[in-house]
């Protein structure tokens, strides 16, 4: 283990990789502050630029951006009550109230400290748990992989914001898009019509940039830019007081554990972990009535949890080769583009990449702690960037970036098409996340399913004959059952309430 960690640090300290850590963290923090540019859009805009990089450097850069965005998103939550990214929604509740009371500095300070501790705990779990899980995962066959990917998609649809049926439709569209092109087993062309471009399938960057970049910009045009109220341009003393640190110690400890565990769950991600942490802190608080009025525990816990979960979500990627959230799935596609198959063999076949990425995350975590506090003043200046300038910049940068994938305008049209799709999905409440994840996981899922069917003589029974896949099916069935049961119960409760109001009214 020691040799592996040393190998990792020797890779991470390579000048190019060190530069990637610094650039990624800085870029991430800046982007996290800007509204309309989340980690998914930023990473997808940068994907074409990483094609020319070494895969290890590319992943280090993108991992730095991911961690940086998580830090940066807090600044707008606290100062403007406008979360820079989804996971910071919870921080906005008490963080903004703290800022209104003149305590923006300690709110940002405790966020940075909590984020550092949460990410460190998750990194330790990643260092020790991922190789062990990879050893176990080597024993998994196509039936288990197929069921694991299927369960992952189900959980993402189930845990995501919005109606389950809409998430299932979105995931089905993503799975369908993954089938466009040549059949991976028979080589037959599927759903390509007369298009030669479609034979190679659709490019993930064009689809993601369309859905998240262009779709989000078009959606944001529905309303004129509203001026959010900046509580204070002076943040003051950032370092929290002794009392703040004492009050935050337990929430940070709990947030670290909650976040690390939630990051391992498909679809868990930052928002779910910060919501769970906020709920836990309210329950444990001596004065729960303080929550929503500027309780530092309501900032420390959720911020710790969302950074811990974004770090621990690398565990399933690096050990199982299955991404459990959209941002991580983009890193998965970078590895695939570079001819590296993420999975249990990554640790033995590409130890420099595996350990190099982990070591760079340790470095990035320290860089973020050191840089984020002094940078707060500069970040406030970035808040002044007008969306009217940012929107066309995102559009032209996305489109030219998409063009550089293969120097062909075809992908620009694909991005525009998915921009319109993303726009309407947002209006009608179909989450774009499951679509992207299903699109990226589609190939793996289909290949594993068909390999499983070809392996056995009894068709679909193979999934019931193997204990691993049987257990995963049982969990999936339970999830669908629970989702249906809760929908029926909610409908009954609503019908009852309507009938009662009619009765009272009459």
């Amino acid at each position, binding site marked *: 283990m020691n040799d592996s960690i040393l190998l990792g640090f020797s890779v991470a300290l390579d000048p190019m990789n060190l530069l990637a850590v610094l650039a990624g963290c800085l870029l991430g923090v800046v982007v996290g502050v800007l509204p309309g540019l989340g980690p998914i859009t930023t990473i997808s805009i940068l994907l074409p630029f990483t094609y020319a990089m070494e895969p290890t450097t590319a992943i280090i850069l993108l991992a730095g951006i991911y961690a940086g965005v998580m830090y940066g998103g807090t600044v707008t939550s606290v100062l403007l009550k406008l979360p820079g990214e989804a996971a910071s929604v919870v921080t906005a509740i008490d963080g903004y109230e703290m800022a209104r009371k003149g305590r923006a500095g300690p709110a940002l300070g405790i966020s940075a400290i909590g984020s550092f501790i949460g990410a460190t705990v998750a990194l330790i779990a990643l260092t020790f748990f991922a190789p062990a899980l990879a050893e176990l995962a080597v024993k998994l066959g196509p039936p288990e992989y197929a069921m694991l990917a299927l369960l992952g998609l189900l959980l993402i649809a189930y845990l995501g914001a919005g*109606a389950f049926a809409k998430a299932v*439709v979105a995931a089905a569209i993503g799975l*369908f898009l993954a089938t466009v092109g040549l059949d991976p087993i028979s080589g037959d062309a599927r759903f390509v019509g007369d298009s030669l471009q479609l034979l190679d399938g659709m490019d993930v960057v064009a689809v993601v940039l369309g859905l998240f970049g262009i779709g989000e910009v078009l*959606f944001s045009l529905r309303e004129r830019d509203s001026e959010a109220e900046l509580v204070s341009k002076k943040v003051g003393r950032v370092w929290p007081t002794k009392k703040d640190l004492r009050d935050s110690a337990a929430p940070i400890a709990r947030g670290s554990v909650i976040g690390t565990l939630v990051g391992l769950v498909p679809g868990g991600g930052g928002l779910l972990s910060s919501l769970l942490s906020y709920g836990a802190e309210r329950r444990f608080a001596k004065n729960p009535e303080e929550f929503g009025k500027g309780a530092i525990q309501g900032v420390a816990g959720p911020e710790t949890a969302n950074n811990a979960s974004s770090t621990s979500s690398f565990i399933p990627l690096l050990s199982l080769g299955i991404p459990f959230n959209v941002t991580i799935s983009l890193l998965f596609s970078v590895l695939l583009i570079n001819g590296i198959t993420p999975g249990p063999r990554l640790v033995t076949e590409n130890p420099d990449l595996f350990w190099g990425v982990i070591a760079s995350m340790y470095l990035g975590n320290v860089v973020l702690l050191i840089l984020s506090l002094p940078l707060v003043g500069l970040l406030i200046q970035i808040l002044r960037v007008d969306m009217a*300038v940012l929107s066309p910049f995102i559009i032209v940068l996305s489109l030219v970036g998409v063009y550089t994938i293969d120097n062909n305008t075809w992908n620009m049209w694909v991005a525009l098409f998915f921009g319109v799709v993303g726009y309407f999905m947002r209006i009608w409440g179909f989450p774009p996340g499951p679509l992207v994840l299903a699109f990226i996981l589609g190939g793996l899922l289909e290949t594993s399913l*068909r390999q499983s069917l070809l392996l056995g003589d009894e068709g679909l029974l193979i999934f019931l004959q193997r204990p691993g896949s049987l257990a995963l099916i049982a969990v999936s069935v339970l999830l669908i059952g629970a989702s249906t049961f809760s929908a029926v119960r909610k409908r009954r409760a609503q019908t009852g309430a309507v009938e009662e109001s009619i009765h009272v009214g009459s």
Partner: protein
Amino acid sequence: MSQQSEDVRYRGSGQPGVKTRIYSVAVPVVLGLCGIALLVGSLALGVGTTNEPGPGLWPFAIACTWTLAAAAIAWESFKGTALPPVGPSQRPAVGFGLTLAFILIFSYIGLIPAVLIVTSAWMKLLSDMSWKRIIIASLTITALLYILFAIIIGTAFPASVLPIP
């Protein structure tokens, strides 16, 4: 606000009108029809058997899931859960038109005019910025993109009518 609560909000505001109900059912019905089209397409590819799966088997499974989920949404809408309205669409339509224009100008005229024209028009039509700020901002964006893509990356741009990309 989550979609579920948004949907509930629509329910709670009283029964939706006939037009809203038709629109709310029409969207998932169209989606369901797309699912059925995929079903037909996958059957045409050949589903094979579970021991010898054909290229259409997996798309067939996807199509079934897609159609069933769309039917569930249509049923919900029919029972009264209205879809959120499309709402104001003039500004997004302008944004879409400018994005389309960018691709066309980029393809047939070149990178610099495409970025200059589209970013200036975007800021003029979709914000209250002064011409002075618009010119400074669009020139800055154009210069940034030119340096990044043409000089640093050395992208081969489409044949341009201008001597520079």
